[in-house]
C-alpha cells in the first residue's frame, strides 16, 4: 500500500460537468476490480489537505492506463480538472473491495444515478465478458448530463431516465426497477443515498434478490485507520466503507 506518483495521460471534459482522467497503470492497479477506488491527492501542499476518493472507472490493460470519471464539485476536483497530459499525480490504491456477485447468477440489473455510473460501466464490461445478461438503468438530470452511451459495451441493454424528460423517459430511475423483478438475479446500484432507499423499498417488497450498493462518506485515509467513513447498519453497528465496502447489501444497511 504505497502512495505513488503517476503520470497523467489525458484529462478531458467529456460531458456537462464531468471529466475523464486517464492515468498510467502501475503494478498494484493492474489487479484492480470494479467497485474498488483510489485516493487521489490533488495537491501536495495541504490545500486541500486530504486525498479525494474516486472509483476506478475502467482499467485498460492493453493501453496501460486506468481512468476515473469525476464531477467537478469543489476545490479538489477543480484542481484535478486542471491537470494535463504529462503532469504527475499522487495516488493510493486500489482500495476497498470489488462489487460482489454470484458466479451462477445470469441476469444483472445495474442502476446508476448521476456520477454513480462511474464504477458500473466497468462492472458491466466484466459481466458481459463472462457472458451475463446486463440491463443498465441510467438516471440523470437532463440529456446533457448523461454519460456517452456509445462508450458502454453494446451488449448492455440501456434505459435512460432524466428528471426533465429531455432524454429517455421522464422520472426517477428507481421507477423502472419493478419491470425487471421477475427477470433479475442480482442488482448493483451506485448513486445518491435517496436512490438506494427508494430502491430498497421496491426490492424489499418482492422476492429476496441480492442488491449491493456502493456507499460514500467523507474519507480521510481510505485504508481503515481514521474511522471517518463509518456507515451504521440497521442494527446501529458501524461499518467502515473504505475497508469493508464500498459495496454493502441494501438490506444490511436499511433492513
Amino acid at each position, binding site marked *: *500500500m504505497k502512495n505513488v506518483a503517476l503520470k497523467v495521460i489525458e484529462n478531458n471534459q467529456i460531458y456537462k460537468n464531468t471529466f475523464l482522467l486517464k492515468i498510467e497503470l502501475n503494478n498494484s492497479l493492474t489487479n484492480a476490480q470494479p467497485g474498488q477506488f483510489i485516493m487521489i491527492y490533488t495537491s501536495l501542499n495541504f490545500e486541500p489537505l486530504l486525498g479525494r476518493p474516486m472509483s476506478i472507472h475502467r482499467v485498460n490493460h492493453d493501453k496501460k492506463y486506468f481512468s476515473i470519471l469525476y464531477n467537478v464539485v469543489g476545490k479538489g476536483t477543480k484542481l484535478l480538472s486542471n491537470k494535463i497530459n504529462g503532469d504527475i499525480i499522487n495516488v493510493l490504491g486500489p482500495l476497498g473491495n470489488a462489487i460482489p456477485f454470484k458466479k451462477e447468477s445470469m441476469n444483472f440489473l445495474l442502476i446508476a444515478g448521476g456520477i454513480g455510473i462511474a464504477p458500473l460501466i466497468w462492472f458491466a464490461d466484466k459481466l458481459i465478458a463472462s457472458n451475463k445478461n446486463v440491463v443498465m438503468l441510467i438516471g440523470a438530470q437532463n440529456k446533457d448530463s448523461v454519460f456517452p452511451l456509445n462508450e458502454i459495451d453494446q451488449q448492455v441493454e440501456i434505459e435512460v431516465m432524466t428528471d426533465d424528460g429531455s432524454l429517455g423517459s421522464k422520472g426517477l430511475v428507481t421507477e423502472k426497477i419493478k419491470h425487471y423483478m421477475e427477470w433479475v438475479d442480482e442488482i448493483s446500484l451506485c448513486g445518491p443515498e435517496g436512490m438506494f432507499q427508494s430502491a430498497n423499498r421496491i426490492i424489499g417488497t418482492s422476492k429476496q434478490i441480492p442488491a449491493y450498493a456502493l456507499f460514500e462518506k467523507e474519507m480521510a485515509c481510505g485504508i481503515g485507520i481514521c474511522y471517518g467513513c463509518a456507515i451504521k447498519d440497521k442494527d446501529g453497528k458501524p461499518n467502515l466503507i473504505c475497508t469493508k465496502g464500498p459495496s454493502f447489501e441494501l438490506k444490511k444497511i436499511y433492513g
Partner: protein
Amino acid sequence: MVNLSINLNKSGKQDLILPNPVLVASGTFSNALELSKYKDIDHLGGIISKGTTINARSGNDSPRIIETPSGLINSIGFQNIGINSFIRDIIPIWGKWKVPAIVNIMGNTIPEYGILAKKLDKFNSIDALEINISCPNVEAGGIEFGQDPKQAANVIQEVKKHTEKPCIVKVSPIVSNIQELTKALQANGADAITVSNTYPAMEIDINKRKPTLGAKFGGLSGPAVKSMTIRNVYSVYQVATIPIIASGGIMHTEDAIEAMMAGASAVQIGTATYLDPDAPWNIIDGIETWCKNNVINDINDIVGCAVE
C-alpha cells in the same frame, strides 16, 4: 551511527525506551493491524491504540470528518471495540511484535480509568498507557477532566493505584494554564505528558444553516495546529520534570525536529499518515538523515535546545 533511542520514563520503575522518537498517534492508526500488512511495524518508535473505553462504542453520526484550511476536524465519537475485545483480539497480535506498545484509555468517570488500567496491567506486551483526559467527566456535569488540574490529578492517582506501567497523560491544548496542569500531573505520578490532543472546533454549512459535523463539534488537527503545538510544548518544557511527547501538526521531519527543539523527547504522527501511509517511516529516516547532516550523534542532544 546516530543514537535515535529515547527513554520516556526516566523517573519510574519501568523504563520506557523507544528505538526512535516517532510514535503513531491514537486514533490515526486504528490498532495497527491494517498497516502491519504492508509495513514493518517494528521499525516505529512506538504504536498507540485507538482510544479504548470500557464498553465498545459505535461512534458519532456522519459527517465525522471535515477539511479546513490546512486542517481536519474530526468527530469520530470514540468508535472502538471496548477493552475486553481489545484484550482478546489485539493484545495477542501485539505480543508478537517488538515495537513499544501503548494503549490509549479513556473513562467516563474516575473509577473507569482505574478499571481500564487494572485490566491492562497484567499484559507484558503492553509497555505503557496513554491516558486521554480531554474527555467529558460524566460525574462532574460533562466538564473535561483535563480542564481542572485537581480532577486531572485525581485521574492519574487512580490509574497509578492500579498499574505499575509507565503512564503518559495526554492533555487538551485549551486549558487555562498548561504549566499549572503539568505541575499537577507530574506531582501526582504522571511519567510523561503528551502535548496535545486536538483543538475544539466546528464549521457551519451555510446552505443548510446547520453545523456541518453530525455531532456538531469536533477536534482540529493537521498542519494548521503545528505552531500552537510548538508553543504549548515550549511552555510545558519550562516547568516539566518528565518527558514530553509532541502531538499536533507534525507532518514532516522538520516539524519533528522543531518540536524536539521546543522540548519534546518524542513526537506523534497523526493526520500525516492519512496523506501518506509511509509518513511515520519517512519521518524516522528523515530524522536520522537530519542528524547526520547536522553532526548530531545523539537525538537527545537537541531536546529543548531552543528553550531559553
